[in-house]
């Protein structure tokens, strides 16, 4: 296959942006590929797609993508995206974040975006660590694991992203890994299509920081671990809590039809305008 005929080619920026800045073997590029394939599959007009990110390794993703792209401040991508979506309800607004970006500094925005059920697609690339700053503990670092800021082992509990999103009011919650790419593609298609706030956790790894600190091996070993530790939603239903410890449940975890925020606000506009007209007559 030549470069020009590759499916992703039409969605990438070719003016001096490549090679990308991620470590060789990183999973973030896989998620980017998945996102491009999902958008291509849905045949979305590139002019009507916005990709918004925060800060961190994943935050660098939009620069490579040929859409309306915005690399915002740390943790605030969902708040920026909320404003854009309110201003342009017709646009497809996709937010890409890392685990620290989405759940530590951005945790409040995350639950409130879910609570509003605003039509955004939030993709969280979860590598369980702060990669760009060199391996500090994140809200999804498993308890007991090492990080440069948890040199004696992490004592924090990790955030259950899916449960958090569901409880806060998201319309769709899904999870897959950078090993199960075909599934990730499909889940992203579903999430983008879904009216309302949808969350896709893409479980990845950071061999450079997390892998080295925790002796988890290189990218191949960590990829293999994703393959071996992931179980489907269906299979997980038959497993006990003990059996599920340390496993990654993958697939569509939650879906509900809930009123969407910009649609509700359109009703507010209609109501306010009707009342104003009544007042005038």
């Amino acid at each position, binding site marked *: 296959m030549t470069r020009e005929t590759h499916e992703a080619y039409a969605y990438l920026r070719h003016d001096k942006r490549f090679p990308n800045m991620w470590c060789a073997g990183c999973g973030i590029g896989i998620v980017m590929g998945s996102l491009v394939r999902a958008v291509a599959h849905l045949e979305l007009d590139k*002019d009507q797609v916005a990709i918004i990110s925060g800060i961190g390794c994943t935050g660098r993703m939009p620069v490579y993508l040929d859409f309306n792209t915005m690399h915002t401040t740390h943790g605030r991508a969902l708040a920026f995206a909320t404003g854009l979506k309110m201003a342009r309800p017709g646009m497809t607004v996709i937010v890409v974040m890392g685990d620290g970006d989405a759940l530590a500094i951005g945790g409040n925005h995350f639950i409130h975006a879910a609570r509003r059920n605003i039509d955004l697609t939030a993709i969280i690339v979860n590598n369980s660590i702060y990669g760009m700053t060199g391996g500090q503990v994140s809200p999804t670092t498993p308890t007991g694991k090492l990080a440069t800021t948890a040199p004696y082992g992490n004592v924090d509990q990790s955030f259950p992203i899916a449960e958090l999103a569901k409880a806060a009011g998201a319309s769709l919650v899904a999870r897959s890994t950078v090993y199960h790419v075909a599934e990730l593609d499909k889940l992203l298609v579903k999430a983008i299509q879904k009216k309302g706030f949808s969350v896709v956790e893409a479980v990845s790894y950071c061999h450079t920081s997390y892998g080295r600190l925790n002796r988890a091996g290189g990218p191949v070993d960590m990829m293999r671990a994703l393959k071996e530790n992931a179980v489907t939603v269906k299979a997980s239903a038959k497993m006990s809590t003990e059996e599920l410890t340390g496993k990654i449940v993958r697939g569509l975890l939650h879906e509900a039809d809930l009123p969407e925020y910009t649609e509700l606000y359109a009703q507010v506009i209609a109501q306010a305008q009707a009342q104003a007209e009544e007042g005038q007559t």
Partner: protein
Amino acid sequence: MSPRLLQGNEACALGALAAGCRFFGGYPITPSTDIAEVMARELPKVGGTFIQMEDEIASIAAVLGASVGGVKAMTATSGPGFSLMQENIGYAAMAEIPCVIVNVQRAGPSTGLPTSPSQGDVMQARWGAHGDHPIIALSPSTVREAFDLAVCAFNFSEKYRTPVILLMDEVVGHMRERTELPPTEMIEVVDRVQPHVPPAWYFPYEETSADVPPFASFGEGYRFHITGLFHDRAGFPTERLDEIQPWLERVFNKITRHMDDIIRFQEEWVDDAATVVVAYGATARSAREAVKIARQGGRKVGLIKLFTLWPFPGELFRRLAHDGKRFVIAEMNLGQLSLELERVVGRARVRGVHRADGRLITPDEILQTIRRRSGRTES
């Protein structure tokens, strides 16, 4: 429009609407909350959108997102919220995103005196965000000026692609005055320049003769990148000195080359004055009264009421100092804009009237300083 009793915060909101503001993202905080309440009620009537965000950081972020979508957007807050917004105000300066931030100042630091006035955020308005960046800050002293300067703030932000801070204070925000608003057709409204070139030729951060490149909205066919990193003319991150330095020069030029347009002030009795009283915001009301009384007493005193605080009107005061005038500056802080004044007037004498205890400076306090200025002793 016939005169009516109007509150400063209301007037600010109405001014924003008249300027074309169609998005408000905010978080309740005394003494600014009335602005959010008016916007929540009025915006949907004109097809705009209001959203109460989860905090002030999210509020300014949503404002910037809406502005990138091509909608004129604002937020309103007070000291504690203004502090929280600083990082994203810096982002707006870096990414050159038009937006208006209203700060109805209350006494601080910290929670301070939530229902008492202050002018303690003057320096924060200038330097609150980290790094060197241009900024415009305006300050009204009457209800009518709150309306006019809200319009002006939007016009500047659109014209110069920059965040504009409207520094109100609790007195001007909560005060009600008989106010006559200008008829709609008399209000000058400026919209950001849109590109007219094919998308492939569009560079959102290009050096242009006007210093301000056109700003395309997301969703209009100009797919480009916005980042808080230093960036090249296309918006892509750069570490090249030959791209960083021109950017810095251009964003400062877009303010410094247009000082004649941006610097707004009002002067009274300045020509023959030996002493010029400088004030802004609510303090300017007391200053005017003090100057009037001093004039009646035969003292040669003039008044300069500043609307534009940043960029500081240095040239104006340099000229007055050159003419041999002395200065009294009154502000509800322990000396913020007075530092700028002292800096620009060289050896001319500057005496400050300051208080930061949440009480308005009275005409009498200013008068006492004017009298000391004149070298006469009180009997």
